[in-house]
């Protein structure tokens, strides 16, 4: 199954979610440096309207991607989920979007902010795992 984490305006939330998905035991204090290092290694060439990278595989064997652009998440979710459902037949692709559009500087936010963000990330990953399980059972 393919899982794509999406966040608007910054790849950071999607990247943190991908990290949490593939490494469930990862604490937030390690997630930020790991995300910064990953982004440095996978920098996006300029001029692209979106950022899409393969992140890795989860323990369940799912392939995890992350994606970011300026398109609002609800709009993208409505279009893509409709498209996958209609065009993809019984294929398994799940697009999970970080619900908030925070324009803050993710890399340099304080510890309180990080903890608040991390709770959102954990909720997103948990919901995505449940959705993936349900899709696999269908």
């Amino acid at each position, binding site marked *: 199954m393919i899982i794509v984490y999406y966040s608007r305006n910054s790849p950071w939330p999607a990247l943190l979610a991908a990290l949490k998905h593939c490494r469930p035991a990862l604490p937030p204090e390690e997630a930020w440096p790991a995300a910064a290092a990953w982004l440095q290694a996978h920098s996006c060439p300029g001029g692209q309207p979106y950022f*899409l990278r393969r992140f890795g595989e989860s323990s369940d064997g799912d392939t995890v991607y992350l994606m970011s652009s300026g398109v609002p998440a609800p709009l993208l979710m*409505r279009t893509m989920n409709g498209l996958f459902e209609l065009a993809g037949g019984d294929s398994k692709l799940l697009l999970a979007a970080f619900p908030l559009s925070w324009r803050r500087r993710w890399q340099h936010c304080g510890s309180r902010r990080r903890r608040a963000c991390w709770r959102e990330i954990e909720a997103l990953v948990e919901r995505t795992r449940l959705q993936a399980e349900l899709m696999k059972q269908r």
Partner: protein
Amino acid sequence: MMIIFQCFGGTHTSVVAAFIYLGRLPRTRRPRLEEILSLPYFDRSGSADLGKLHYAGRDGKGNPVFILGSGRWGAGIRAMAAALLRLEGYPPAEVALIDCLPLVTLPVRVGGFISQRLGLTAVGRPLVGRGFLWNYTRLLELVEHFERDPASYLL
């Protein structure tokens, strides 16, 4: 193949183009204003419908035809849809996306604003409809271009 006609709101230009394609609007003459105003979805979708694929019907080859409003993010949606449909492990799917946004004219824009944003449908809707009558040939050309060369519209 899945066929999607896309414009800003998914309620005017893409609707007319989709129904020309499906044969509900004539190709040998200009339609009457009532024919345009009576189309399903015409001037009826709101901003909450942006991003939803609205089913319009099936063409002569059995391909499903949809209408989509993408706001000002049409190009981004197109690029990301193309990228996601080509992901490794995802089965190949044929999706043609016809962007009708370049054919949105000033009367359509103004009429749409009056009808959709100001809620004055009695004023805005006929103006939009007349805008399409004045611009019908270009819409017809777009549809016929797609029929001649569908490959250039594939994602």
